[in-house]
């Protein structure tokens, strides 16, 4: 999802750039303070690891492959601030050296792929970890679920930005349905991969996993063995449930193509709407008869992303303070 | 003359969470400008020992003196200038984007800058036979080149003592010979940790065997390597057909 230049309106590019720079600056301050100078080479090598891990192709079915994105993995391994920094650096380097993602798109690319996945993933991880058993299996499961959630959050964040800065006359509903729908599938893959990579690290060096810091060595020693197949079946089932819930949203707003045929010429009148003409991109709300529904979907998605990301930032700051007091 | 003595007395160290001492009362004295090979099986404490010499591991009990300098927290800055450590994996040592920046890293930390720094880098690279490498990416160097540049990164700090951890591992025969030529031409006191017994014989008049966290043998290298029984006791073996007495 490395969006190129011009994919969203300049206003959104500017606002997200300011936001991302602010969060990065905070992250640098935290990382600089958190564990001192050791973090510098460590964060750099970890960023190289995430970059390399994204190059590993995993088989999905019958020869098709997918790859890891790594946002949630990074925070479970390295903690929220350093993890966020590491994934941001990966996104920046991909744009700067590989032309993968536009330079003017760095604001929203960093926000969606690094900041939202890191803090949203961290919040989801903390929440799930609470209901999981205090074992390494619990940490792995929470990490896997958080990874799946983080990918869907990232897609939702993009859809919301589309609402403000669409560059094409495709309605928010269509973008939201397609982005989130596709990313639920990608999320399953991300969850499985993150879980497996985490379990490999937990098996050899559990002390390196920040997300498992709360466990005593006795709790770490408990090996809950879950087979590969049950694990996969479980994650696919979870995805189906999430997919059904989301398709309920999408189904209530008619399919994009159909809509176009019915509402030809509607775009002009929609711009008169109080919301449509001011805050939101004309495009994103155009072509949808039930504009309030579209805004409701956007609102719910926005609240979900904000709550999780905000919660992640909050608990991340709190954990830093606690460590400083010790 | 840039060399000084090394004195280690009764060094003890235990890694956190372990039940055995990694170092169990290790003592050794090395004279100014002397080259000593540190031999011993894997896990004997060799690397733990040398990591104490520049304070990368902080001492739990015992005493280390580098020349007049005591290795304690307050002296670490000076100790690390005087003791240059060349690590086993050159990719750990060469962490910057160019050879120039890597060789300049140490002296720049000491406050040297500008043209003085540039000249120092050029001079040091020439000394290790790597002149003209300055703008290359360390990743693109061969194993032997990496090792020589790694040595340059500490020579540029003008150290009095050199610690080399497995300097010949992974080198081809020519690279190994070039390295030996380089090391034998350096005036610094040298401690060479190695499994390469012929290297010890070629470079060092004296060798010690570290086993179980202390020095169990300390003698002229020829003598040590001729004692087949002693070597076998500590999992050391000469290459087949190699006879130290006939050198």
């Amino acid at each position, binding site marked *: 999802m490395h969006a190129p230049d*011009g994919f969203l309106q300049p206003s959104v590019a500017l606002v997200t750039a300011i936001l991302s720079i602010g969060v990065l600056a905070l992250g640098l301050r935290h990382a600089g303070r958190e564990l001192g*100078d050791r973090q510098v080479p460590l964060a750099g090598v970890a960023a190289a690891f995430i*970059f390399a891990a994204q190059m590993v192709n995993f088989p999905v079915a019958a020869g098709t492959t997918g790859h890891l994105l790594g946002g949630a993995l990074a925070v479970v391994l390295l903690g929220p601030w350093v993890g966020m920094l590491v994934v941001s650096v990966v996104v920046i380097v991909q744009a700067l050296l590989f032309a993968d993602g536009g330079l003017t798109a760095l604001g929203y690319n960093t926000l969606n792929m690094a900041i939202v996945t890191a803090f949203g993933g961290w919040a989801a991880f903390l929440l799930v970890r609470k209901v999981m058993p205090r074992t390494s299996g619990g940490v792995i499961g929470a990490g896997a679920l958080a990874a799946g959630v983080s990918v869907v959050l990232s897609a939702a964040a993009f859809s919301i930005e589309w609402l403000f800065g669409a560059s094409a006359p495709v309605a928010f509903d269509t973008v939201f349905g397609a982005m989130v729908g596709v990313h639920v599938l990608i999320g399953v893959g991300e969850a499985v991969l993150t879980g497996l990579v985490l379990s490999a*690290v937990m098996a*050899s060096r559990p002390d390196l996993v920040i997300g498992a810091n709360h466990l005593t060595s006795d709790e770490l020693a408990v090996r809950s063995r879950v087979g590969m197949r049950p694990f996969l079946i479980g994650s696919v089932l979870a995805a189906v449930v999430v997919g059904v819930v989301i398709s309920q949203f999408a189904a209530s707003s008619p399919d994009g193509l159909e809509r176009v045929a019915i509402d030809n010429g509607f775009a002009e009148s929609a711009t008169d709407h109080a919301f449509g003409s001011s805050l939101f991109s004309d495009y994103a709300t155009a072509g949808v008869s039930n504009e309030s529904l579209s805004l409701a979907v956007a609102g719910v998605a926005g609240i979900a992303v904000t709550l999780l990301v905000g919660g992640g930032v909050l608990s991340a700051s709190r954990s830093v303070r606690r460590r400083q007091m010790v | 003359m840039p060399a000084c003595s090394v004195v280690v007395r009764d060094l003890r160290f235990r890694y956190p969470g372990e039940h055995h001492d990694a170092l169990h009362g290790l003592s050794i004295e090395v004279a100014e400008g002397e080259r000593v090979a540190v031999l011993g099986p894997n896990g004997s404490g060799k690397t733990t020992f040398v990591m104490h010499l520049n304070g990368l591991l902080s001492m739990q009990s015992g005493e280390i003196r580098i020349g007049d300098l005591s290795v304690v927290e307050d002296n670490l800055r000076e100790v690390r200038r005087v003791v240059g450590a060349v690590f086993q994996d050159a990719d750990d040592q060469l962490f910057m984007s160019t050879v120039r*920046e890597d060789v300049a890293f140490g002296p720049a930390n000491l406050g040297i800058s500008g043209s003085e720094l540039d000249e120092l880098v050029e001079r040091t690279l020439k000394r290790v036979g790597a002149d003209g490498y300055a703008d290359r990416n360390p990743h693109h160097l061969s194993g032997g080149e990496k090792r020589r540049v790694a040595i340059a990164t500490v020579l540029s700090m003008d150290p009095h003592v050199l610690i080399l951890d497995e300097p010949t591992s992974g080198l081809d025969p020519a690279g190994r010979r070039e390295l030996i030529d380089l090391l034998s031409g350096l005036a610094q006191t040298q401690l060479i940790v190695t499994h390469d017994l012929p290297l010890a014989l070629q470079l060092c008049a004296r060798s010690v065997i570290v086993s179980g966290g202390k020095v169990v043998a300390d003698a002229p290298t020829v003598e040590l390597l001729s004692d087949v029984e002693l070597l076998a006791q500590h999992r050391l073996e000469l290459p087949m057909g190699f006879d130290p007495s006939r050198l």
Partner: protein
Amino acid sequence: MSGAHGSTVSRIFIPGDSQIHRLSPETKLVAVVAAVIVMAVTPRHEVVAFALDAVGAWSVIALSGIGVRTYLKRLAVIIPFILFAVIVPFLSGGESVQVVGVSLSVDGLWATWNILVKAGLGATMSIALSATTPVAELLHGMTRLRVPRLLVAIIAFMLRYIDVLVEQLGRMRRSMVARGHDPRWLWQIKPIASSAGALFVRSYERGERVHQAMLARGYSGVMPVVNDRHASTREWLSVMAYPFMFAVVLVVVV
């Protein structure tokens, strides 16, 4: 979502002695960012402006002498967005035109054009920058532009070790293939995932050893500045003329 990062770090820079190669990195960086911003804010109807921008961007590629093949190969990163852009006219509303019997939205076609031209020109500028500037130089440029040192240092370490890690990964992969591992289904991926986990552990330990190597050479928490040459005012003026040209095109045409 593109997984193929084409080449690894050591192959991004293409050695050469062109005018573009000789420019100082910080001026190049600023000029490219400024040019891309100007392109990004250019209204999509200004076809003439984009045509002139394209001439400008391609001149840089031509001057740099990196070759059409390399350029096109690197441009391939935007393919996923071309695919997206092509679908847009089918999904969009508003006034439509008939193209070989299919009804396409006019507005949607403009959107397709907008995404294609901006993505293409933006990527072209990035490619021109990274292909003509050695990574180390680019990092110096960032330092001189006051990008936080900590951030530059993290990026520098990342770039130094990507190729090392990719090689480690390749070795692990070969050893798996050598033992007959040929996964085709999702439930066969455990060995690959384990190797990724092992790679993390090795990376972490590498990071710790690098830190020790830094301490051993007097590191005290601040990366030393080794190269402090600054670009001259003349250099700045000549390079900034480039995005300025783009801006002039924008103002004149609009």
